[in-house]
């Protein structure tokens, strides 16, 4: 059989194209790498870990690039739809899909974790026969399982929002309300209170939990320190509005300080004077 070189021409052309492109890829790497690092730093959603879970369903929508925000919004509507139907697997999948597509809004993380930690245990217990049928130990186990899932989910959120005080508050709420773990809840509230955008109530709850844990001296020290830094009067020049003063609740903190001073039997000279 005669060898026909012309038959190999498409293969040779294709190989040449691939080779030229590979060389070009190598040559433009110094241009691409710094730009790509910059883009990645600005766009947490592009990290592989966040897409892995959603790749099957989210592939098409992920490709839409700039439509990320609205795609996540539409999937959030879908999440609420399956949540209304109490469809646990679908709700859990959509919650993760939404934050995989767009992890930037805190709203999705907070509300997603609430669905997992508070609603899903209820669904599971109702599905298993209801609160009167399911033994308390089983109910407790279900609560713990869902709380663990929610905490894992919130931990992932910290990758995208490391400084968000509200995430710490949400973690604290899960520990306190679902796992009844006051010590861990207290620690999470403390972290929230120490953030620049930490809500005033996080510090108050931390003090109250220390008190309930029997760490009264610690609670008193914390509340005294907190009280000293609370805004007590409106100061427009420093950006302290009436709402801020109201939210800070300095009189309430002082009242608790006095209660703790009583409980600890402190001498008059050791007590805070208003």
């Amino acid at each position, binding site marked *: 059989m005669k060898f026909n070189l012309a038959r190999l021409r498409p293969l040779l*052309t294709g190989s040449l194209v691939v080779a*030229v492109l590979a060389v070009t890829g190598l040559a433009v790497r110094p241009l691409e790498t710094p730009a790509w690092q910059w883009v990645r730093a600005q766009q947490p959603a592009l990290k592989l870990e966040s897409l892995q879970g959603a790749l099957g369903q989210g592939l098409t929508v992920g*490709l839409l690039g700039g439509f990320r925000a609205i795609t996540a919004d539409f999937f959030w509507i879908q999440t609420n739809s399956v949540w209304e139907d109490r469809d646990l697997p679908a709700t859990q999948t959509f919650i993760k899909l939404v934050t995989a597509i767009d992890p930037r809004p805190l709203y999705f993380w907070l509300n997603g974790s609430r669905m997992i930690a508070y609603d899903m245990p209820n669904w599971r217990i109702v599905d298993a026969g209801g609160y009167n049928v399911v033994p308390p130990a089983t109910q407790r186990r279900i609560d713990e399982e869902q709380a663990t899932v929610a905490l894992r989910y919130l931990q992932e959120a910290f990758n995208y929002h490391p400084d968000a005080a509200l995430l710490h508050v949400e973690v604290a709420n899960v520990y306190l309300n679902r796992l009844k773990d006051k010590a861990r809840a207290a620690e999470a509230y403390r972290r929230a209170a120490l953030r620049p955008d930490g809500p005033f109530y996080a510090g108050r709850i931390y003090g109250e939990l220390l008190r309930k844990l029997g760490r009264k001296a610690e609670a008193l020290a914390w509340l005294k320190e907190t009280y000293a830094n609370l805004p007590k009067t409106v100061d427009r020049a420093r950006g302290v509005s009436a709402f801020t003063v109201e939210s800070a609740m300095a009189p309430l903190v002082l009242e608790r300080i006095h209660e703790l001073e009583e409980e600890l039997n402190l001498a008059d000279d050791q007590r805070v004077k208003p």
Partner: protein
Amino acid sequence: MSSLARSVPFSFGRLGIVAGNTFLEAVRQKLFNFLLLLAVALVASAQLFREFNFGSSELKFIADFGFGSMVFFGSTLTIAATAQLFFSEIENRTALTLLAKPIWRTEFIFGKLLGVLAVVGVFCALTTGLLLVLLYNRETALMAANPEAFEAGRLIHYGDLVLMGVLQWLKFGVLAAITLLVASFSNTNLYTVVMGFFMLVICHLQYLARDAYSQVSALPLRLLVQGLSYVFPNFQVFNLADQIGIGQGIDPTVFLRVGAYALTYIAVFGGLAVYSFSQREI
């Protein structure tokens, strides 16, 4: 290159004529007008979709939505227009007439490429301009309603919006060059369009392959994936719009790097299309 073409030197004038004709032909097509109208309508309706916004700020949402429309319809327009404009020459036999004259295939291919670039340039300019007006109006309204939130001035960097429009245009330029490379050896318009969309998907997702190769333990597989990541350009580097709408801007050096990256690929894919087309019997 035909023997006739060899007898004349390369001419930017002839290249410009091909580009001008390509542009005119594209503008006369219904596809261009239809996609342009759709994109403009979608960008303009971004405000209506605000009701669906849960997470991000309103301005960010409008910016995301506007650029989303531009990327989606722009990619469709680029692939479809490039394939159609190339194959209309082949199918109508005008390519035969044209290439029988003293004209280089390089002039033909780069003329087509420049024509498509002009078409998507008009598309990008219109959609970016519209988005700019939309954001400016909305931001002005928000500033009037809530002046405390804008004490530091406007949140949107309007210059960056223009830079983003330019980057999208360059990305469409790379996509047009890729589509032209496929068209240079393909026999049908449909095959070219489908391959163009596949390439778009691959170039958008190639960073996943690059991430994956670093985790693969088998050396041959790792080398294969690494090699693939070098072959396809990374379209995600063009996505610098994430900071628009939240008061942060685009790093100018990053813009310049991405611009140079795009121009390099346009030249390389264009050159490869010329090479591949020169091997083709028409």
